[in-house]
């Protein structure tokens, strides 16, 4: 009896031991596995050019895993949802390791990004140097908070056949010349269509350059002094009013970003300001329109020619558990072999901000896209000449400059629209 009891007690103890050990093994196994194969989550907004995303999924990520054993999880967010997604990741401190940035995210989330100056500077040295615009988009308080990737330029898109009807074969050089052509074209029922409503990009895309080309700016280079109330701004506003009245469809005041594309494909307008996508889409879906679509740099004003910088860059979250691996990945990704392959699949939709690509073969695929390269030298973030700041982001989100022009076009006197823009800007730059 005693012997049996002892043996059963032993076996129970053994069972418990085994069970505990087994559980420990089971629990620890995934951790071991995780430690062996690390994963970098790479957040990106869904691209207008499908092969661009596929290239990462099918070529770059597998190649990197083969080389290093580190898996790259390319997570795509829908168009427009990237800022919200980055907000969530930055606020919760998890969800992604590397992210793409749009126009203003580097400023907004800079505190949560690693300084990647070492990588960016090495890449610049090796590949012909960065465009100034590239630096302008990613430097926060003098630190590289992202590695520039490209610009998605906003340029003039025009109908060659209708321009020819009024005797114009090359795109006008100045805003005034464009205005004269526009008047003739509107009389022939081929008006212009430039967005003056609350979209995301096609409004800022031409209104900031217009303001700059007349010598105006919303804030001085110190990033504090509001300087919108100037004769230069007044001249730009006066020009916009007559440009709207005599060349455009009245509906542009209510347009959002889809509207000018829709109007272009419906053959309603003869000139607009948009990204390369309008030509891409026309060539694919409406080849007849594609044939007569050309692109040009923004016209010049009395103070020169300007473009809006609509940059894309990549940052590493400072809280990422695989920071060092992410750094190594970014270094690898920015090597010419990987980078040029990635640019190539999108042809020139993404315009490199490295001078080594100024004469890359991809520019020969569609020569009509060349102005997007030439515009890089005069591209700036909205709010220029002030450095990018959270105040600038607020001014953009509140459509201060867009609405200043739009109100004038709708009939409000120049003085009044500038005064109300000034009041708004002073509120926004209150704590600068």
């Amino acid at each position, binding site marked *: 009896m005693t012997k049996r009891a002892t043996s059963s007690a032993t076996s129970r103890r053994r069972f418990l031991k085994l069970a505990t050990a087994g559980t420990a093994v089971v629990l620890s196994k995934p951790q071991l596995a995780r430690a062996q194969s690390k994963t970098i989550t790479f957040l990106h907004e869904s691209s207008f050019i499908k092969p661009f995303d596929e290239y990462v999924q099918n070529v770059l990520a597998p190649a990197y895993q083969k080389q290093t054993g580190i898996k790259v999880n390319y997570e795509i967010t829908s168009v427009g949802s990237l*800022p*919200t997604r980055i*907000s969530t990741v*930055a*606020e919760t401190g998890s969800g992604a390791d590397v992210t793409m940035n749009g126009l*203003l995210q580097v400023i*907004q*989330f800079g*505190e*949560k990004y690693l300084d990647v100056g070492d990588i960016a500077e090495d890449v610049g040295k090796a590949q012909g140097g960065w465009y100034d615009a590239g630096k302008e988009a990613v430097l926060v308080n003098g630190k590289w908070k992202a590695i520039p990737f490209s610009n998605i330029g906003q340029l003039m898109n025009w109908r060659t056949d209708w321009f020819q009807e009024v005797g114009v074969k090359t795109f006008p050089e100045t805003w005034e010349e464009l205005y004269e052509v526009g008047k003739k074209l509107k009389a022939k029922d081929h008006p212009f269509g430039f967005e*003056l*409503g*609350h*979209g995301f990009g096609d409004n800022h895309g031409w209104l900031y350059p217009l303001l700059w080309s007349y010598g105006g700016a919303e804030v001085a280079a110190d990033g504090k002094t509001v300087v919108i109330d100037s004769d230069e701004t007044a001249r730009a506003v006066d020009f916009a009013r007559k440009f709207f009245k005599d060349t455009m*469809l*009245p*509906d*542009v*005041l*209510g*347009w*959002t970003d889809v*509207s000018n594309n*829709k*109007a272009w494909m*419906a053959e*309603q307008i003869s000139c607009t300001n948009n990204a390369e996508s309008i030509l891409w889409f026309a060539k694919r879906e409406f080849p007849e329109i594609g044939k007569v679509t050309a692109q040009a740099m923004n016209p010049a004003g009395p103070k020169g020619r300007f473009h809006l910088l609509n940059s894309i860059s990549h940052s590493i979250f400072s809280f990422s558990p695989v920071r060092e691996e992410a750094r190594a990945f970014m270094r690898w990704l920015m090597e010419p072999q990987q980078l040029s392959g990635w640019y190539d699949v999108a042809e020139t939709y993404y315009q490199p901000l490295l001078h080594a690509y100024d004469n890359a073969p991809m520019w020969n695929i569609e020569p009509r896209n060349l102005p997007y390269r030439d515009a890089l030298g005069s591209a700036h973030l909205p709010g220029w000449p002030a450095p990018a700041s*959270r105040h600038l*982001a*607020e001014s*953009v*989100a*509140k*459509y201060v400059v867009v*609405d200043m022009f*739009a*109100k004038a076009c*709708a009939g409000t006197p120049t003085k009044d629209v500038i005064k*109300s823009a000034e*009041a*708004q800007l002073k*509120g926004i730059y*209150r*704590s600068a």
Partner: protein
Amino acid sequence: MTFVSQHVPAVRRTADRRAPLKTLLDREAVFSWLLMALPLLFLASLVGYPFVYGLLLSLQDRPVAQTGTFVGFQNFVVNFHDPVFWQVAVNTFIYTGVATLLKMVGGLCLAVAMNQHFRMKNLVRALLLLPFIVPTVLSTVAWMWMLDPAFSVVNRLLVAFGWPKPGPSWLGDPTLAMISIIIINTWRGLPFYGITLLAGLQTVPPELYEAATIDGAGGWQRFRFVTLPLLRPIILIVTLFSIIFTFADFQLVYVLTHGGPQNATNLFATYAFDIAMGAGQLGLGASVALAMLPALAVLIVALTIYMRRN
């Protein structure tokens, strides 16, 4: 016997131990609170927490992804001096007021019409709900096409009748844009009113109409003195809900105009979203969103008091 004597005390002991718990549960106050606990917890975590968090945010200078600093009522002061904030406030009141009135009158007419007997009544009633069922974003995109002068069925008709080409710019003109969003909101919200009031209409006892008819009441008098008083509580409830929904409307404006042209259609919800998510100023955005609260609270309290009195 031995068996029983050994076990009975044990049973009694257990019963004694359970007794206080049982009596405790028997007490109505305790039991009802116990039943309420889960829903209360649910409310506190899903409604209370975000609300309190929003309140705290509105008192901070809190850029996204950065730690906030307490600034008291500074955000509200900034809003007070922001001309667009006041424009947004006026827009929201006009939008809510006109759309709710249209929905109330239209919904009542719809309910009375649907309460008649006609062929395929049930099918028509079901179809009426369509605007309410279709996801807002989807129906708004359809309206976007209908309001585009180049494709608009309305504009084509107007032009055909001699209106100068290309017809009115529905979303480009500030007044027309406001009218457009009010019309779309009314179109979308009408079925909610209509069906709810229809349900109310069907609870009105037919004897009352018979009695009124015998007393010599005509159609309008029957509606004015029988239908309307009986429907009043339901009208009030539906109006209350409708005002809350309309006041905080977001999707329709965000998709259709994004607050344009020149902020003519910007509402509290869209403006707050642009500041919080677009500009990354979570504190300022929260303060704009909270500015809706006093107006809504006064309205809700007033309506509730009115309903209790009646």
